[in-house]
């Protein structure tokens, strides 16, 4: 396993695109958060909502490079034929797949932490001083939101890895992942029935998982923050299982 991890880390480190995609994640997250916090109308009483969630809004966009990175980790090998070498060197496919997932988790955790902390910092600098409502990592719910957002990005990465392993083609996988993430919110925006809206928000990987960012009005959420992240974890697990199983039973 250590050798497998070392091999995967070498592959990740020696290709230019993962680093660029991680930088893209940081840039997209911080930029969108900065825009969101600068357009909001703030008064002395507050910003009319959940400032933590607002500052972390950048992950709406920042998750896309994470998904692409995760897709390329495996589909890049399929398109270049490298996968045959990988599986010849590591015939135990489950080990090779686990090594990929672990390496990806580590890389996204680092990139995601930088991105999320950057977004919080941008929020602190841009939002007016709100006294006791200010963003602070010492505040329990805020810390949970920040930590949970990093976990969310990791889960999106794993979900994308699972889908890409099952599909084996980068373009199709990116299409499926981005569709899965962004279609649900758009649909629930056009649907007028509140029960359906609630249901969609409970099952969609993005809407459910980002419940982890809520720090106010927790009782009015469609589902609790950790349960929401659990839904995203369920999606990621299902995708990883499907991808891992197909990797085992199929020829490359």
């Amino acid at each position, binding site marked *: 396993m250590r050798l497998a991890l070392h091999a995967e880390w070498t592959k990740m480190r020696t290709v230019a695109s993962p680093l660029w995609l991680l930088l893209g994640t940081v840039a997209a997250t911080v930029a969108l958060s900065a825009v969101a916090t600068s357009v909001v109308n703030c008064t002395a009483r507050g910003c009319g909502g959940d400032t933590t969630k607002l500052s972390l809004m950048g992950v709406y966009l920042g998750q896309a490079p994470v998904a*692409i990175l995760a897709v390329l980790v495996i589909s890049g090998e399929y398109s270049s034929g490298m996968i045959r070498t990988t599986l010849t060197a590591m015939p135990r496919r489950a080990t090779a797949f686990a090594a990929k997932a672990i390496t990806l988790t580590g890389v996204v955790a680092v990139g995601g932490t930088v991105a999320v902390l950057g977004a919080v910092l941008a929020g602190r600098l841009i939002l007016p001083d709100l006294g006791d409502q200010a963003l602070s990592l010492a505040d329990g719910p805020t810390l949970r939101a920040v930590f949970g957002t990093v976990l969310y990005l990791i889960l999106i990465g794993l979900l994308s890895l699972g889908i890409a392993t099952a599909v084996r083609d980068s373009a*199709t996988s990116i299409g499926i992942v981005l569709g899965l993430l962004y279609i649900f919110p758009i649909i629930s925006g056009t649907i*007028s029935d509140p029960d359906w809206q609630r249901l969609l928000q409970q099952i969609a990987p993005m809407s459910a998982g980002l419940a982890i960012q809520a720090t106010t009005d927790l009782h009015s959420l469609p589902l609790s923050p950790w349960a929401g992240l659990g839904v995203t974890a369920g999606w990621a697990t299902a995708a990883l299982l499907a991808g891992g199983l197909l990797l085992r039973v199929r020829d490359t």
Partner: protein
Amino acid sequence: MTPTVTPYRPSERVGRDGFLQVLHAEWTKFRTVRGWTVGMMAAALMVVLFALLVGVSSNQKGSPPVPIGPGGEPVTDSFYFVHQPLAGDGSITVSVSALKSSIPKAPGDLRPGTVPWAKAGLIIKDGTRQGSPYAAIMATGSHGVRMQDNYVNDTAGPTGPASAESPRRLRLDRSGDTITGYASTDGTKWTKVGTTQVSGLGSTAQVGLFVASPPAVGGGGTAGSVSTATFGDLRTQGGWAGGNWTGSQVGAKSPTFAGYPENAPGSFTGSDARFTVTGAGDIAPAVSDSLPTGGHLRNILTGTFAALIAVIVVGALFITAEYRNKMIHLTLAASPRRSRVLVAKAIVLWAVTFVAGSVGAILATPLGLGLARGNGVYIFPVTSSTELRVELGTAALLATASVLALSVGAIFRHSAGAVTTAIVAIVLPYILIAIPFMPASVSKGVATVTPGAAFAVQQTLVPYDQVASNYTPYYGYYPLAPWAGFAVLAGYAVASLAVAAVLLNRRDA
């Protein structure tokens, strides 16, 4: 003796290297790759499935009925009406010496404010039923004197606000179906503001004073406002029965339908010639803001978003797959004029996507509309030519987006990058537009300069000058005309196709 073998020679045809052959070759490539055919079918299916989902999951059965104007369009028709019956012909004159509006800063906290289209004046109407025919002349918050009739017609009269020093005198004459409005700023010199034919008023119409106050627009939303007007010198001539003036609220007081702020009900005080009237609401064509429960065609075609992703993936793969499996060498050896190959690919892809998109949209629209109407959703009416424009426009949008993806794929020669770029270029604007609190200038800018401008082909709503509202893409009002918006996307597609052709000619494959 060696057996003679006749080598296979394809029959020589005229125009062997013709464009038609290249086109045929590309079509054969497209239809024989199962994944691409499936992708196109999936795109059409997405449009239909999401239309069904939107139709099934909508539920407006409990909402109040939408008032319909004489022209068949949805209208807002709620105001405070101080009236008497007028049998046959007659006229009424009044002066408006003040029109003050209030806007709530917080629930129950009313502050004086400016409501540009607050209205106070004279109206002749076929009873108090919402949506019934009318004609009115009025002083407004900041648009001077106007004469309006049957919700959509609006004529400007003398400018400037009404005040105690300079009251606006208004007069309305009925002669059969002909209603004439006059205005005067000094009480001696009268100018005719407009003459209009209003059919359906009946022999006895309700005539009198009215005050309306449409919701104040700001911060991406609206807040119900209320206005109070002071009337004087009320005089009548003709077939008036006499007696007391009756105060009625026309329309529901529900806040959804331009109702009153908290603790500010409609009322009137006074008698004889002087009245103070308080009212809210509006007499105007309905817009997205004032009819939030109304649906429009764009909602039914929400699946366009999912279909876009599918056609972008297929479009990018149509060229990048050739680079990946080295097929491109063979393609370019067979057809050395490289830009022709690219153009042939673009034509085949555009045509296939357009057909798939049309099938999807033409099936989806009636299904989705039927289901949504069955669930009590009021759909803003469109003519059948507009409906066809939305359906074919959606198909053209999908087709052009896939050609854009093809061009970007030819530039990048790598599917992941191409798909990501094309999705970001088209889908990101869609998402930015769909954020309600996005400032109007930003969202209009996004819908003007990015490829996302093409979503304008799905617009069915028209803005009205005499209704202040949030006319932003989020509410279904695009800054560009339908085909102008589409032209922006087409421009991007053609430009990137040209860049791709230059690069394809310059680079080794």
